[in-house]
């Protein structure tokens, strides 16, 4: 069994500063090219009477050759005596920043190439900045084309000083600087006789010195819940919480807490396929668990250990964002946030400052983030999410932003700003200040209807007879001369919601529409009834807010697992429909929504 370790390295730098040549050299000098490849490329250069370039070795794709620039992240494999490397060639051309980001985010270390002759250019700075934001902590700077500077130590030192000063401003400290000539092979695989003044490692030597992985194991336990599986149809009754452990370790029997829902349970078993029974799992593992108690949780929650330092929960936070979308990021629009396995609707609530990564110019006046801007911003989600600050836990403290189906930006969380008014609360406040009523007042309607208005939400697991109950309640109230209406979900789906059906998950927007509708119906004096599958605390809270200032009544059917919500009425099961309906009617009477003699 081979147990050699493997490491991903990214190579970045301004276009034409020599990345491809460095890679070509690394491949050639470690003997990693297919046999005869080098000769074949040399031969083809001779035939076309153009000078041989190590960079040609990389030109695997035709359009690359035709455009003369590296268009995408390409991966090359080579090995040293110590370990195997995958070198990710991230394009230097500004057009391809997206590709550079893709490449760099997969790397554990970066080589940043700067042309000694041309000096620090726009992308030398931008890439230095991006690599740091992406979380690559080990950066080595290759000062290339030293042959053009006659291998002068002074030139190398001057560039080193200038670039170190730049990196210091963005809190990056490179591991090392190496003077090289990729074309001539100086300091790539073997020390350069032309630069006896340099005493550090060669590029290959430096690669082998980079550290790999490690520390994540020792951090607080974090598992973003990716999915909940139950393969009952295949005769498997396990209910498995699945996800990849981002940090820390966990063992069977331990207590766990899910955020933002606040639900608790403990780990009954660690599940896996084709392995010996597992008693613990650690950072990096794509794992699965069964829980000791039946709780209802959703993908996107963060599973943590209650005794560990806790993550943040909130709807508003400060973040550093880099934007690579064609259309600018603007406060006018809604976006989708993906943080760990959580997804949420998000808005740009404010821009603190923007940074032009090329010249580090700071602006405090920009109203939007343009393509390739980096900005310190305030973001607001419509529902609470659990996260960490990037400074304490990197992998659970970063996110991407989706605009119009595309990942258009990424960012790291700097500070939790939650606690103030949420987007929803502000919406309600503004809505109510503009609400327009006719001349008929709520009190007039109550007097005429001889009951008060109410929004009744019946919720519980699917197939518990909630709909039948809701309809029966409507009939009973109607027979007793109440002004009432039952809203069926199918009616919404094909009507109010028809415009949403093409968009995948729109549960949040559906809820908003139901809530707004309830506000209107209760304003019209109705007892407005609806049945919703598996509403959680947050759903109820949202409906309650949206229906304000009118009142909501929650009926739980079967097993609900609310943490903060106490339903006004719990009905274990609807064996006797008449009895269940009567209980709701009695409750309405006791709350003086309807009067006793009405039923």
């Amino acid at each position: 069994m081979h147990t050699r370790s493997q490491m991903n390295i990214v190579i970045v730098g301004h276009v034409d500063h020599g990345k491809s040549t460095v890679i070509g050299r690394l491949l050639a000098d470690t003997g990693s090219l297919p046999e005869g490849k080098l000769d074949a490329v040399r031969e083809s250069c001779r035939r076309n009477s153009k000078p041989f370039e190590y960079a040609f070795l990389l030109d695997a794709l035709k359009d690359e050759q035709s455009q003369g620039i590296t268009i995408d992240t390409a991966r090359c494999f080579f090995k040293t005596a110590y370990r195997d490397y995958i070198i990710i060639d991230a394009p230097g051309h500004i057009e391809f920043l997206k590709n550079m980001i893709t490449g760099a985010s997969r790397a554990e270390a970066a080589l940043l190439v700067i042309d000694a002759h041309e000096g620090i250019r726009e992308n030398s700075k931008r890439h230095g900045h991006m690599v740091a934001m992406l979380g690559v902590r080990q950066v080595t700077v290759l000062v290339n084309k030293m042959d053009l500077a006659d291998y002068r130590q002074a030139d190398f030192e001057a560039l080193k000083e200038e670039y170190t000063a730049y990196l210091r401003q963005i809190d990056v400290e490179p591991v090392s600087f190496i003077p090289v000539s990729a074309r001539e092979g100086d300091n790539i695989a073997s020390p350069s006789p032309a630069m006896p003044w340099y005493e550090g490692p060669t590029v290959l030597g430096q690669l082998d010195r980079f550290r790999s992985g490690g520390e994540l194991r020792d951090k607080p336990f974090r598992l973003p819940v990716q999915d909940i599986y139950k393969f009952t149809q295949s005769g498997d009754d396990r209910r498995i919480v699945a996800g990849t452990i981002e940090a820390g370790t966990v063992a069977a029997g331990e207590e766990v807490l899910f955020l933002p829902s606040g639900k608790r349970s403990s780990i009954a078993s660690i599940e896996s396929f084709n392995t010996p029974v597992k008693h613990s799992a650690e950072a990096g593992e794509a794992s699965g668990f069964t829980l000791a108690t039946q709780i209802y949780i959703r993908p996107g929650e963060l599973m943590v250990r209650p005794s560990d330092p806790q993550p943040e929960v909130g709807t508003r936070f400060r973040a550093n964002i880099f934007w690579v979308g064609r259309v600018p990021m603007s406060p006018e629009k809604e976006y989708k946030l993906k943080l760990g396995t959580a997804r949420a609707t998000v808005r740009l609530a404010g821009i603190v400052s923007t940074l032009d990564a090329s010249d580090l110019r700071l602006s405090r006046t920009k109203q939007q983030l343009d393509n390739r801007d980096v900005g310190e911003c305030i973001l607001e989600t419509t529902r609470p999410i659990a996260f960490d600050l990037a400074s304490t836990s990197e992998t659970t403290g970063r996110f991407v932003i989706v605009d119009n189906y595309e990942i258009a930006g990424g960012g790291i969380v700097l500070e939790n700003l939650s606690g103030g008014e949420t987007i929803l609360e502000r919406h309600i406040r503004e809505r109510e200040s503009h609400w327009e009523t006719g001349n008929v007042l709520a009190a007039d309607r109550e007097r005429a209807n001889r009951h008060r208005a109410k929004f009744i939400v019946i919720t519980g697991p699917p197939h518990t007879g909630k709909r039948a109950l809701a309809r029966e309640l409507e009939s009973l109230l109607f027979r007793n001369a109440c002004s009432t209406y039952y809203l069926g979900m199918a009616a919404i789906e094909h009507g109010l919601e028809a415009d949403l059906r093409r968009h995948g998950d729109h549960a949040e927007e559906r809820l908003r529409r139901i809530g707004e509708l309830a506000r209107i119906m209760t304003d019209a004096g109705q007892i407005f009834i609806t049945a919703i599958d598996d509403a959680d605390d947050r759903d109820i809270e949202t409906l309650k807010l949206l229906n304000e200032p009118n009142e909501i009544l929650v009926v739980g059917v079967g097993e609900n697992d609310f943490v903060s919500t106490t339903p006004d009425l719990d009905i274990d099961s609807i064996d006797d429909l008449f009895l269940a309906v009567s209980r709701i009617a009695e409750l309405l009477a006791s709350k003086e929504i309807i009067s006793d003699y009405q039923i």
Partner: protein
Amino acid sequence: MNHLDKLEAQSVYILREAYREFKSLCMLWSIGKDSTVLLWLARKAFFGHVPIPLVHIDTHFKIPEMIEYRDRMALEWNLNMIYGENREAVVAKQTFPDGNTDRITCCRHLKSEALKRTLSGEWPRYRMNHDLKRYEPDEKNEPYTGVIVGVRADEEGSRSKERYFSPRDSGNSWDVGDQPPEFWNQFKTDFAPGTHVRIHPLLDWTELNIWEYIERENIPIVSLYFDRGEGTRYRSLGCWPCTNPIESSSRTLSEIIDELGSGSLAGVAERSGRAQDKEDGGLETLRRDGYM
């Protein structure tokens, strides 16, 4: 975690992400070693189950053992097994083995076209009935919007540029120059109507990793990969008229791993036994048309 554990964890994460995000998802199974490892990884991801339909394109020229192996595993592992084909081209003999087309055109007919129309649901799909142990026309014909494929970056040049989640437009074509960014394990899981996404959980694996993993997990693979006494074995599997075995006497997994490790195959491309790659434009031209 060693390097195989890391590769496995990443692939499992990708598979779960695909399963979570795509309502209409399928996985291509060519019967070869890579997509068989992929299938095994799905069993890892879903704790012994494979809740994703497997699609195989039957060219009618596959080495017979491949089909026999496919159906045996489908029954044993309780797979939702589907195949599709280009019936018209086979019946009209518009193929290379029938002497009526060149190799590339044959691939285009029997594979690219068949695949495209099977995925879109335009052409019939056949599904394994586990009670009757035979295939039946499948009534479901919704297009697959997520297609999981077992390509690896180290296979050849054009594959080294793929993303884990790679969008294709309705014509199946791939815009290599303008791909969405992919970082921090966040992938393109939102897609516009009329487009679909190819998902590549094995992108970071090498040929050697695949064999090491097959050995570690003891995954049953089709015996064509081993020398069975003739001093040859297949390194890459396809249709019999266009696939040649390589000279090798490796009879076991560990012999294959040693052979790859020794570098004796280092100068030889993995797909060198696949004749269609060598024709003009070769694999890359085919890939742009949606070939896997």
